[in-house]
């Protein structure tokens, strides 16, 4: 796979890489750093991509592996705003349900985050099992537990 083919495929799938970065890192800067690291690792790992599996499956594996393995220092997520907002009404109101759902996902451990990401990307249990390296039945059991956990987190 040459550079142009690689970049075309990455461009096609970069949305999911952004979501993985948002899930595994707290601050926008850390998310940007992880995104760059994932793209770099994907390119470096291209010689290992034999084309037997789908590009997306291979990409998920590398992206999730990078997100989990790359060390990040625990620091508070401090964001500097250009100006103090006048009032609560003047601030942008993100979709609260979506944000609440995402906050719940971020509270999962790294392994559960990986499994639920693959599930929400509409991969089959068999595909998830192959990407992660666990049995298909284990995937089913784990996902049921994760979904229950998310429901409980959303009720809080």
């Amino acid at each position, binding site marked *: 796979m040459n550079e142009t083919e690689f970049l075309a495929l990455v461009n096609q799938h970069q949305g999911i890489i952004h979501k993985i970065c948002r899930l595994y890192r707290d601050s926008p800067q850390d998310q940007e750093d992880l995104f760059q690291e994932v793209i770099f690792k994907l390119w470096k790992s291209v010689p290992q991509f034999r084309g037997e599996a789908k590009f997306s499956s291979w990409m998920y594996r590398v992206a999730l592996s990078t997100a989990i*393995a790359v060390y990040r220092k625990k620091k508070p997520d401090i964001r500097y705003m250009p100006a103090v907002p006048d009032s609560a009404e003047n601030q942008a109101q993100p979709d609260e349900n979506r944000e609440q759902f995402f906050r719940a996902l971020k509270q999962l451990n790294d*392994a559960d985050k990986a499994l639920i990401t693959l599930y929400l990307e509409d991969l089959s249990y068999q595909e998830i099992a192959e990407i992660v*390296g666990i049995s298909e039945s284990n995937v089913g059991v784990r996902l049921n537990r994760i979904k229950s956990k998310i429901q409980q987190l959303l009720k809080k």
Partner: protein
Amino acid sequence: MEGDALHSAWQQMPGGQKPNAELRAMIKENKHPVLKRVRKQLIIETIAFTAFLFVYYDFFDGGRKPVYANVLLVTAMLLVILHNIFGYIMAKRSIYGENLKQSLQHQLAKMKTYALLSISGRILSAACLLLFFTSVITFNTPKSWFLAGVVAITAVQLVLLAGVWVKRIRQMKTTINLFE
């Protein structure tokens, strides 16, 4: 939130889209922020240590010390440089493994190797430096206590470094076990 609602919320999340030019820059080794930092550190340290080697003979009486002490000093400098080179090579290596669990296990093995080399490299480097500076000293009680203090401070630093690596390795092991 039921399954469909979970899927729907996930699909509606903004994904982000970077232009091709930006993606192209990200795959270049000379644009990688961590590799750039390590390269800069390598260059600065190599220049600094080379300059040091030119002046240490006069400044630290290299000529009055035994040959082995001079060799040890050069070894100490080289160990630091080699450590940085090794870190650079490790940082740019690709991800191996047939699946996510295998990839993480491979990364854990890499981490352990680097930790071992980092800590043993520091120990050897410190030992070489100490041996150089103490090679022609005749020790009395105050000097012995001073040396003991230096060794103690170095040991504390090494213990802290080892602690950092043990924590990171433990975190990684815990995550891998979560996939069992």
